[in-house]
């Protein structure tokens, strides 16, 4: 199932009058992938998603969804798309069922297929018991669920979620993460957010936007141990000399933190932790704590998006 290229964006540019919101943007998302779109407020995330979803026309460049150009054959491209905009597009006067039925009809579903699609979307978004409730009376979290239900209703290969977890409580955020994770198995998902742990938790790849440009694009795991090498934090009850630690195979630098704590920089790989534990037993250092410290996405994000401001 995976591998099929479902979203392809090339040379995308979007201007608002004289102001350029997004420029020179290239990315793609395959089936079975979740792409996290990151960036500070105003970086162009929502604009990008509006263009990809066909709500805005690109000033230059091309967007194809499931092989169909959004501008040349919008109907086919949009049939392959489920889109949750930044503000969930809900008709507050309708009940959840009425609303989802309307959305399903917009996508050409009728009769038994419509009912099946509606019930499946409700089940996936935890709305089974709420079909007859008015959308206006739902809490923010439930409204967000209805918005997501709308986006996955017709089982589109491409799902775009613009900040799906804004304003939700931690439990609801976990549920939505689980849902996105689930969707990521057989859909192409683009998720925009400025919550970094969210990206680390569910995304396969990350694209960081800053002032309308892509400043970073790679796999999430690569972002984790990017910057060449990783770090190991350890604590001992009877700490050895820093020089002893530095002599261990693979250690590049040792940074003592005091109270028996050290940070060891190493060249990557997983042999060092084992060697360190063995050395501790041998030397009777009393190893109490040992955990890998990866360069977090947050550090990367701050580095990339603050650099220009300082310059």
């Amino acid at each position, binding site marked *: 199932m995976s591998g099929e290229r479902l979203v392809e964006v090339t040379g995308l540019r979007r201007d608002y009058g004289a102001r350029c919101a997004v420029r020179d943007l290239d990315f793609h998302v395959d089936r079975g992938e979740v792409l996290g779109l990151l960036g500070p407020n105003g970086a162009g995330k929502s604009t990008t998603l*509006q263009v990809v*979803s066909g709500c805005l026309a690109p000033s230059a460049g091309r967007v194809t969804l499931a092989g169909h150009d959004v501008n040349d054959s*919008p109907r086919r491209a949009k049939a392959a798309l489920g*889109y949750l*905009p930044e503000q969930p597009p809900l008709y507050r006067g309708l009940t959840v069922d009425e609303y989802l039925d309307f959305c399903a009809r917009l996508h050409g579903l009728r009769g038994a297929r419509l009912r099946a699609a509606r019930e499946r979307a409700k089940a996936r978004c935890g709305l089974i018991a709420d079909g007859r409730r008015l959308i206006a009376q739902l809490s923010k979290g439930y409204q967000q669920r209805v918005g997501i239900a709308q986006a996955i209703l017709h089982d589109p290969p491409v799902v775009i979620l613009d900040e799906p977890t804004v304003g939700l409580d931690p439990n609801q955020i976990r549920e939505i993460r689980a849902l996105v994770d689930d969707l990521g198995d057989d859909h192409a998902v683009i998720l925009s957010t400025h919550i970094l742990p969210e990206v680390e938790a569910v995304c396969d790849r990350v694209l960081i936007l800053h002032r309308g440009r892509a400043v970073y694009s790679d796999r999430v795991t690569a972002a984790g141990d990017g910057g060449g090498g990783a770090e190991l934090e350890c604590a001992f009850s009877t700490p050895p000399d820093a020089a002893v630690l530095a002599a261990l195979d693979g250690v590049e630098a040792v940074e003592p933190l005091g109270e028996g704590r050290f940070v060891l920089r190493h060249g990557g790989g997983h042999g060092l932790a084992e060697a360190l534990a063995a050395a501790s037993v041998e030397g009777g250092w009393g190893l109490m704590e040992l955990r890998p410290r990866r360069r977090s996405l947050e550090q990367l994000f701050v580095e990339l998006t603050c650099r220009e401001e300082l310059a």
Partner: protein
Amino acid sequence: MSALVVAGRELRGLFVTPFGWIALAVAQFVAAWLFLVQVEGFVKLQARLAAVPGAPGVTDLVVAPLLAQIGVLLLVVMPLVSMRAISGERQAGTLPLLLAAPLGAGELVLGKFLAAFAFGLLLIGLLGLMPLALLTGTTLDLGKFLAGLLGLTLLLAAVAAVGLLLSALIHQPAAAAAGTFGLLLLLWVADAGAPAGSALAWISLSHHLQPFLRGLVDTADIGYYLIVTVTCLLLSARRLEGGRRG
């Protein structure tokens, strides 16, 4: 067809809020009042009219003025309906749902138009029932009455289309309604003081309604309303398309 799906949702939206019901009720009340005033005036005049050979009948003196007044009511009520169509969706944040759906701008505009048109037809239908009550006591010139209803229907189409265009152009619903009402009112009175046959008379909405109320169905008048309707719908669709580039 997607246009009908859009139209169905729009109509439902008018009636799940109090708006649709209140608009219909108020229009009915106002029209009933005008109708009663009209009938009373006719009853007072009746004795004198009976003496004049070839004097205008109840259709000319009661029904035609009532239909003209229903036309004015349309100018007041329809901008409030059409403002919701696109401007309202934009403000409520629901427009992206329609723009990201596999649905052309033409279908979207047509759906919105059909909903406004259907609401207006309901209004005309309910108000148009009142003159039929006269059938219990007198006879009506039904040909004239039906010609008048046809004229109102064509006027309704034009009014709904103008409202839709302004709804697409103006982002704030209240401003769209005010703009529509102002423009329609201007078009309604454009022929005031203008000689028949002048350009001002030709663009006037009311000028083309008068022949229908006299029982005269002229293709030129039908053509006028259809041209206004179709032009506004095409421009609305273009505007929606253009709005993506904006």
